[in-house]
């Protein structure tokens, strides 16, 4: 673990709570899909949990988070309520989006999750607009926009970084750099030495950080959020991480060498953080086990809620396409 200024014990435990909740959700979603109880493509964030866990403890409810189809970790980090979250995964009427968005478009405005996009890179320009609205409201709310390393090669990324910098927007661009754009290794598809280097071209602060190190990630997020709140403009965080379960469920990661995968799995950030918390005396093994159980129980209740919920009525096809009435 890094030697930087450390979050307090409560913050560390909150980071761990969120991270293990993400893992619980990921494990269960995969089981439910394999059991035929959820019918959906699924993009696992396993291995990337600490990034949103460490960012979200620096956010408040009125801040917004934009994410992608690989987004359950970001959504759980922002505090999405479990029952409608799981129900949405199942396409149920009780889901956050009444089952009309699905896993790739999980949205929960009340939790500060206004957009989850299935289009690579498309979240960045929208995050700018959310940040612009906050700026116009004279609030010091910030917008965190998550995406993968693959998204940094699409035009929207470059247009959005440039505009955010020119307009000095309170936005934090978080590249969850897992080293693979779908199946293509970083250096085969990305010309810059690091993603952080790309910030230089836009006059923006770019930060490289070990996204699997809770304290380093917390510290990088804290600085970036602080700058954004203070009106000092955007930051690009290049958070190095790894993706353990392929691009899409069913992908066996054949394009990743066995050595690379074994090395990454050996450095799994979750057990590493767990051991460190115990080693440093922040928590006992028993306390962490209790926390994990609590997460599992809460998630199981949400699964039960989702399974017991009805599917939306087909009349929903005609609803929410347009407003029922216009503003005054």
């Amino acid at each position, binding site marked *: 673990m890094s030697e930087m200024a450390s979050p307090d014990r409560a913050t560390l435990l909150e980071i761990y709570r969120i991270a293990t909740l993400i893992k619980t959700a990921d494990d269960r979603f995969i089981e439910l899909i394999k059991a035929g109880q959820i019918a959906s493509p699924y993009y696992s964030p396993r291995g990337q949990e600490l990034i949103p866990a460490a960012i979200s403890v620096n956010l408040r409810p009125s801040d*917004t988070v934009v994410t992608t189809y690989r987004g359950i970790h970001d959504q759980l980090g922002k505090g999405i309520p479990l029952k409608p979250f799981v129900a949405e995964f199942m396409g149920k009427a009780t*889901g*956050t*989006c*009444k*089952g*009309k*968005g699905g896993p790739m*478009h999980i*949205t*929960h*405005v009340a939790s500060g999750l*206004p*957009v989850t*996009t*299935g*289009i690579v890179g*498309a979240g*960045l*320009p*929208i*995050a*700018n*607009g*959310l*940040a*612009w*609205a*906050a*700026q*116009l*409201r004279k609030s010091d709310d910030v*917008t965190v926009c998550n995406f993968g390393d693959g998204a940094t090669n699409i*035009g*929207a990324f470059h*247009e*959005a970084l*440039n*505009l955010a910098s*020119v*307009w000095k927007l309170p936005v934090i661009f978080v590249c969850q750099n897992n080293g693979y754009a779908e199946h293509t290794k970083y250096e085969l598809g990305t010309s810059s030495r690091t993603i952080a280097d790309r910030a230089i071209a836009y006059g923006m602060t770019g930060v490289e950080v070990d996204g699997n190190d809770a304290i380093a990630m917390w510290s990088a997020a804290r600085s970036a959020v602080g700058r954004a709140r203070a009106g000092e403009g955007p930051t690009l965080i290049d958070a190095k991480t790894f993706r353990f379960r392929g691009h899409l469920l069913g992908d066996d990661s054949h394009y990743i060498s066995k050595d690379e995968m074994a090395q990454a799995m050996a450095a799994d950030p979750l057990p590493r953080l767990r051991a460190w918390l115990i080693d440093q005396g922040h928590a006992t093994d028993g306390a962490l086990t209790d926390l994990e159980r609590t997460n599992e129980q809460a998630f199981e209740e949400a699964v039960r809620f989702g399974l017991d919920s009805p599917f939306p009525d087909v009349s929903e096809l005609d*609803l*929410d*396409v*347009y*407003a029922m*009435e*216009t*503003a*005054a």
Partner: protein
Amino acid sequence: MSTAAAKQINMVQAIALALDEAMGRDDSVLVLGEDIADKQGGGVFKCTAGLSTKYGTERVKSTPIAEQAIMGAAIGAALGGMRPVAEIMLMNFMTVGMDQIINHAAKLRFMTGGQTHVPLTIRTATGAGFGTGGQHADYLESWFAHTAGLKVVAPSTPADAYGLLLSCIFDDDPCIFIENLPLYFVPGAAPVPGERVPIGQAKVVREGSDVTVVSYSRTMLEVLGVAEALAKEGISVEVIDLRTIAPLDMATINRSVARTGRAVIAHEAQVDFGVGAEIATRLHRDQFGRLKAPVGRVGAARSPVPFSKPLESAFIPTAARIRAAILDTLAPSVATP
């Protein structure tokens, strides 16, 4: 005629007036686009002239030439409670921001189960006639009308432009507001300040009894000229200015065609797979027994917009082609019982 009714303005002035009215009325109304602030000239067509001086460059923002960034910023601001009006200088440039418009603006209300909506207006200009060639003059309205979640308007007069723009800005759905370059400087009656034209209402602008012509945007000028000329020959043409393309006001069209039994749809977009096809098929559904002739369609040639003047002049739906289509519906040889 009162002096107020006699006052004439053009469409550029009408748009500027509507934007001013909306910004003055509601602080959440924002304007963004390339070169739109006064320091950059108040917009290449001057539709936004004076706004940044009056309302400040926080609310009236010039942007880089980056349509994805413009559309994204507008969508995000709309999600954040604002009512942005984004100017995409020319309709062909909409293609650069298409992911944001189609995958996001149009769909977010539905995909979020109604939790969010995108009260966004996209103003964009187009139209052949200025020698701008193949990438600056397309009418792409059917692309947008085809997308669930979008509303599409295309006024032909300054007063309708004013009233429809206000309606779009205060509408809670994303609206595509289509302007036409040659129409910008055609004078018309000044609007009544603050008076909105409802989205989704076509207007019978000339009454007639022999045939109904449905049109919108710049093609309305040609249609009205042809109707006037045909009147002198004893042919009575009813002209409907559609004004809104989506949602389509079939009630007004049906009322007219039920009387005339004949219909022609004329627009500057290409005929194939266009707005005319949608109206024609709905007329065949709704008026099958009453139609005295197949529904006619007139539009641009099926080619990219050409540069060379004779080609460009022949590309658009000319008065001669509109006239021929109207006469076709009246010809006994094609009339059905």
